[in-house]
């Protein structure tokens, strides 16, 4: 017979809570959560961020053979894309790319330090960024406006490069890599010859460590890299019939000793190259952190076009160069359990310079003679342009956690900055004799920007983020940048996010003040550009899979575009930068990701429709995206990745340029104004090499399915007679192989095995 006391015990036992069983799926799903700090300047999970953010970790960059940030944008991001016109890559967002802006619509940060220089707002996402990949912990790619905390330039997006903690590395890493590209003929097809191969080599050394200095924690990261690239031979279709005139006589244009007079085109073998040398040092001691960054980025482009400086054909003397020196010092202190203060000072020096090697004719004899009777002598000269820039400032920031538990946090700050830049031109002959020199302009200015952000966890999974920044400039009207975001974590593992925000970009010194006697006049009265954007996003987790859908709409106003100046200001037909355009863009992005057995897949696609008030939209794809499959069985084992990036056909940059025929009637291109759909593919294998401990190798092979990019090259940027079609840039990585080797020497005893 069952004792009576058993039954109550059984009842109590049944009612007592039971410990949970291990749930590997749930734990691994949590370990796949991403934590970002750029969207709110505070650590928060990706799902709680008031923006669309893509996080790309260092090992992902390595696993996909990524060589620069623009590749990371294309192969990883949701809604951002990059295009490479054989010069510096350009970045667009949600179907909008404003070509020839030199990167001044995307804000680039390194550990929160603005890299966009103060003269033309340029920041590079290609090799010109000058941050060794080995120094990177992860990238945070924000799609959409970001001025609420960062001010100017963040109209299309924000790229924040977060560097590694030295104590996490505790090693010295040396990397060497090289790439080969076959030459391309005038049809954009790879050639089967060893001569004319494009080649690139890169070496880098990174040291990171953490230790105690007395009782103070010290964290150090130092990284250096050297990159040298020589582009493959490119064959350009001849563009004949160019002439120069002095008003009374005309003769074939002199494109230099590597071209037939009057004809631009042929084989380029010397003028496409890149040299980059950069270093980064970051030291944290207690509450103080200092960063020093220096970089040199020099390149020659193999063509004359909208993105490159005018030059003789295949002249390696023509080049552009950027020099950077950035200093950042910051101090953080918790004043109380509810309040913290940080102070930051920064000083940056930058110089842009270019040299265009050009050729012309010197004449002697009677100028009234016909060209056949004039003795022409070819002479070359260098037109050098230099713009030194300095800026510096201080930022103070306070954080107040009203309740002390992280639910209601206020961030308030002010950023004050001074800047100074000038522009100089110098003409010399080939012997270096000065033909002329002058300073075009010099300008200094200031800006002060207070900002505030309040985050609130309201309960029931609802959070609110309200922010406002007001940028005051010496030369422009105050620019407010508000943001409101509402996020709801649903009880069924979903997330709904609604965001409304604005951003702006101040006109640059180059756009306002630059001028020359041949094609440009200044326009000091330019107004800031503005964008207002809304987005509605929903993400649903289904076990370890996730699907996210983002709808967006953006209205751009007062866009600064390059075009014909009013005749009363420029009767000679020169052009200028003017607030001339409005643009509206709307669409949606979709992202899916998850495991497929031992594989991991991610796929994204963005579709958008873009319309512009004053002219058809160029360069902006109607849809684009990426997809990748990764097999990575664990650290210290070989892994394989297959990745692709794709973009729809889109109008080329000069698609709607018009010319005039002999009778003065307007003519358009006869065709060839659409760059074909782009599909880039790559396969990457990486793994440990037998032999010395810490040796890893990576092999990448890839290419573009399409032959042509969206940039028009050569002096024929508009049709001069009926039936002409533009010449386009070939895809720079039409076909390539890349090999990299990394050796890591640990400074501390091994920390044990790591998860995949």
């Amino acid at each position, binding site marked *: 017979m069952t004792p009576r006391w058993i039954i109550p015990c059984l009842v109590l036992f049944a009612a007592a809570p039971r410990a949970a069983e291990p749930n590997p799926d749930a*734990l691994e799903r949590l370990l796949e959560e991403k934590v970002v700090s750029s969207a709110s300047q505070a650590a928060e999970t990706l799902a709680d961020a008031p923006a669309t953010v893509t996080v790309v*970790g260092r090992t992902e960059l390595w696993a996909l053979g990524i060589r620069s940030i623009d590749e990371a944008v294309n192969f990883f991001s949701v809604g951002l894309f990059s295009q490479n016109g054989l010069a510096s890559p350009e970045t667009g967002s949600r179907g909008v790319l404003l070509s020839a802006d030199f990167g001044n619509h995307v804000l680039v940060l390194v550990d929160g330090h603005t890299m966009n220089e103060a003269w033309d707002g340029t920041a590079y996402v290609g090799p010109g960024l000058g941050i060794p990949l080995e120094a990177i912990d992860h990238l945070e790619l924000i799609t959409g406006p970001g001025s609420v905390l960062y001010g100017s330039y963040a109209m299309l997006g924000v790229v924040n490069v977060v560097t590694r903690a030295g104590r996490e590395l505790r090693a010295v890493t040396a990397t060497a890599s090289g790439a080969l590209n076959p030459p391309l003929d005038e049809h954009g097809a790879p050639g089967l010859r060893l001569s004319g191969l494009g080649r690139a080599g890169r070496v880098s050394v990174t040291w990171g460590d953490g230790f105690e200095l007395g009782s103070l924690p010290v964290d150090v990261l130092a990284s250096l890299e050297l990159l040298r690239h020589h582009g493959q031979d490119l064959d350009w279709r001849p563009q004949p019939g160019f002439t120069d005139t002095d008003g009374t006589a005309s003769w074939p244009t002199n494109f230099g000793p590597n071209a037939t007079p009057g004809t631009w085109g042929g084989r380029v073998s010397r003028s496409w190259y890149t040299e980059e040398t950069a270093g980064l040092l970051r030291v944290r001691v*207690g*509450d103080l952190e200092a960063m020093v960054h220096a970089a040199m980025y020099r390149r020659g482009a193999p063509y004359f076009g909208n993105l490159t400086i005018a030059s003789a054909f295949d002249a390696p003397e023509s080049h552009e160069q950027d020099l950077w020196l950035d200093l950042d010092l910051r101090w953080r202190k918790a004043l109380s359990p509810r309040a913290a203060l940080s102070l930051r000072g920064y000083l940056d020096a930058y110089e842009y310079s270019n040299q265009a090697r050009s050729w012309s004719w010197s004449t002697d004899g009677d100028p009234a003679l016909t060209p056949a009777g004039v003795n022409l002598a070819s002479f070359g000269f260098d037109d050098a342009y230099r713009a030194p820039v300095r800026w510096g400032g201080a930022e103070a920031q306070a954080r107040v956690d009203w309740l002390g538990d992280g639910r209601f946090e206020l961030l308030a700050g002010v950023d004050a900055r001074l800047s100074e830049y000038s522009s100089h031109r110098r003409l010399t002959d080939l012997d270096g004799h000065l033909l002329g020199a002058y300073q075009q302009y010099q300008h200094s200015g200031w800006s002060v920007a207070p900002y505030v952000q309040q985050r609130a966890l309201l309960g029931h999974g609802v959070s609110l983020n309200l922010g406002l920044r007001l940028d005051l400039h010496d030369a422009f009207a105050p620019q407010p940048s508000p943001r409101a975001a509402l996020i709801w974590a649903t009880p069924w593992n979903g997330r709904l996010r609604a965001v409304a925000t604005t951003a702006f970009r101040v006109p640059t010194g180059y756009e306002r003040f630059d001028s020359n006697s041949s094609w440009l006049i200044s326009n000091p009265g330019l107004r800031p550009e503005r964008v207002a954007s809304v987005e509605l996003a929903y993400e649903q987790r289904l076990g370890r899979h996730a699907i996210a859908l983002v709808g967006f709409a953006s209205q751009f106003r007062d866009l600064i575009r390059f075009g014909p100046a009013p005749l009363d200001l420029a009767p000679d037909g020169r052009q200028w930068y003017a607030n001339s355009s409005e643009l509206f863009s709307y669409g949606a992005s979709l992202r899916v990701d998850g495991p497929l057995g031992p594989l991991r897949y991610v796929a994204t696609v963005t579709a958008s429709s873009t319309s512009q008030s004053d002219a058809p939209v160029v360069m902006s794809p109607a849809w684009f995206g990426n997809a990748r499959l990764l097999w990575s069985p664990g650290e210290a084992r070989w892994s394989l990745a297959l990745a692709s990036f794709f973009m729809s056909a889109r109008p080329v940059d000069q698609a709607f340029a018009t010319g005039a025929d002999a009778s003065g009637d307007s003519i358009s291109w006869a065709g060839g104004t659409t760059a074909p759909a782009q599909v880039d593919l790559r396969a990457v294998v990486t793994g440990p090499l037998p032999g010395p401990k810490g040796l890893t190798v990576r092999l990448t092979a890839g290419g573009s399915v399409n032959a042509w990019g969206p940039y028009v090259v050569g002096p024929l940027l508009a049709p001069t007679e009926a039936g002409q079609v533009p010449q386009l840039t070939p895809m720079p990585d039409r076909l390539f192989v890349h090999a990299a080797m990394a050796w890591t020497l640990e400074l501390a005893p091994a920390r044990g095995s790591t998860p995949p």
Partner: protein
Amino acid sequence: MAWRWGRVWAMALGIAVATREAAADEAWVPAALQVELLDKLVPYDRNFAARAHANPMVLVAYRDRDAGSEHAARQLAAALAGRRTLGDLPCEAKVVGFTSAEALRAEATKERAGVALLAPGIESSAAEVARVFTGWNGLTVSASGLGVDEGFTVGFVLEQGRPRIRVNVAQSRRQNVDFRSELLRIVRVTP
């Protein structure tokens, strides 16, 4: 005059670096995510259920007189209070100031704590905590992820924008924490 200003700047710099408090906004796994991770982690300890019934308290410790550390501790405690369970078993949280490992262990014993969650700022005492807590029954968890090599049993660290779990297996065993092998395949293990 110049040398006097030089001394002023040197003193200011010295004050700026002389502290070792938890950085106000140093990157760490957000409190709510840490608590979720802890909730999914504890069932992997074979001794968790028995310990939790007897010792349901989670002590959240901060470095005494370190405002940043205390702020982090209160965020962790608030996240725990929002959950009320760990591994499906009831738990309570109490915030205490850390003055020494001995004092913390005494508090843990008095409060019947099975988990000591250590806010950023206590990492430099990891070895001392490991020595004192040897033989104790429970987890010592580093919220900054630091100090696991030196003696905390578990730590949550941010790497490449993702949370990672570090486990000191040897110290865990000394504290009667017996993790299942399937956990050790997905965390970073310190032997």
